[in-house]
């Protein structure tokens, strides 16, 4: 890549920082240059976020249909999977998986619910009275 070819496209980095790229200057020597972004990778990142949104929506539908507990929705919203959530709450992963079932979730005590609320940085009430 030549230094003059370092892409300067729009990206979410705008207003935060530019990033360092290594490219060749006019004498054919490597130099660090700054880039505002590259549309090719912005599209990849946008695609990943669309997928996140899709998963959150799907979770929301499942919670509303009583096919999953609110934990699923907040887990997706916090970009977590069962493994990460297990680590944040200190609850075994197989138990986290069980807690995604509405029947199991409805019997959870406040102590357990508080752990989830802390992990999601929400109140226990938002978990109990899901809207």
């Amino acid at each position: 890549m030549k230094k003059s070819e370092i892409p300067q496209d729009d990206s979410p980095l705008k207003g935060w920082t530019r990033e360092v790229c290594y490219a060749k200057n006019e004498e054919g020597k490597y130099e660090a240059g700054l880039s505002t972004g590259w549309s090719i990778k912005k599209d990849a990142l946008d695609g990943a976020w669309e997928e996140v949104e899709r998963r959150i929506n799907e979770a929301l539908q499942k919670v509303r249909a009583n096919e999953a507990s609110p934990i699923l929705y907040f887990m997706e919203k916090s970009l977590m999977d069962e493994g990460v959530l297990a680590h944040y709450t200190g609850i075994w992963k197989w138990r986290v998986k069980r807690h995604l079932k509405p029947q199991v979730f409805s019997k959870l005590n406040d102590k357990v619910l508080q752990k989830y609320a802390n992990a999601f940085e929400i109140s226990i009430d938002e978990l109990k009275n899901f809207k």
Partner: protein
Amino acid sequence: MQEFKHYQSAHCENGVTIGLLRQAGLHQITEPLAFGIGSGLFYIDIPFLTLQSGPAISFRSIPGSIFKRTCKAFDVKLQSHKYRDEDKAMAEMDALLAEGKSIGCQVGVYHLTYYPKEYRFHFNAHNMIVFGKEGNDYLVSDPIMEETTRLASEDMRKVRFAKGVFAPRGHIYYPTQEIHATEDQIKRAIVKGIKRNCGEMLRIPVWFIGAKGINHTAKNIRKWKSKYGDRRAALNLGQIVRMQEEIGTGGGGFRFLYAAFLEESAAILGNDELLRASEMFTNAGDMWRDSAVQMAGIYKGRLSSQADYNLSADMLTEISAVEKEAFLYLDKIKL
């Protein structure tokens, strides 16, 4: 407080390495040198493991290794701590800062408030330097950022104790003495870094690591459309491009950074064959960028036939061959 100079770099670990080592007196170290001496170039496509439901691919060696290897090459004495107790971890950081030390610090990016939201996934192998504290704010030199930034105490605790894969557990590290290197030491460090990198890219006997690992990914790509359907298959390609090009790679999956290292080494060692090798890695980097453009055609929805996936795969197969040749050439140079 000791004056702290911020260095922006392509890759966070390189940036922390040069920031800490230069402050300790090793003025000759540059980002490409740190990356090459630490044998940073790599390829792995871990089977049976998924990241955000996509392929688990990395273009660089395991987090922490660049710093560790570079420090070892210059006999740097280090202090390094991980913690169970969050309060203790915070208190010890404050005590070190009060002594005027600058500290390398592993963090998760999910709670890094000075990053744009779009980049804040649960990624825990980020590194930065903390060089002071003013009131409730820590003064932070994050190598990805153009300028130094600040992070509030509460957030510092969250990022240091982020959970999940590579959980930092409050990990801090810093050199404990002045570092000086002779020309000869630098030359030896470069040679060792190159040789180790050749070994890791050519001779690890599993199919998913090194230059041949790229071809393993190519084979997978051919199956994605029928195996996962269009949506998932396209997302997988997007994930490859993100790992390859996202902030922190210097472009082309770290290949340009490695080419820059070889160019710098050619001058230091007075060896023109290294310049030729540098060209080969520039070529590989350009090919990675071309493959990203092709893959973007698919994940943007412009292309979707099996032939398009095959073309992406063919491009990776070709890169696999080019990198193998480049490393074989590099390996044979008498240094």
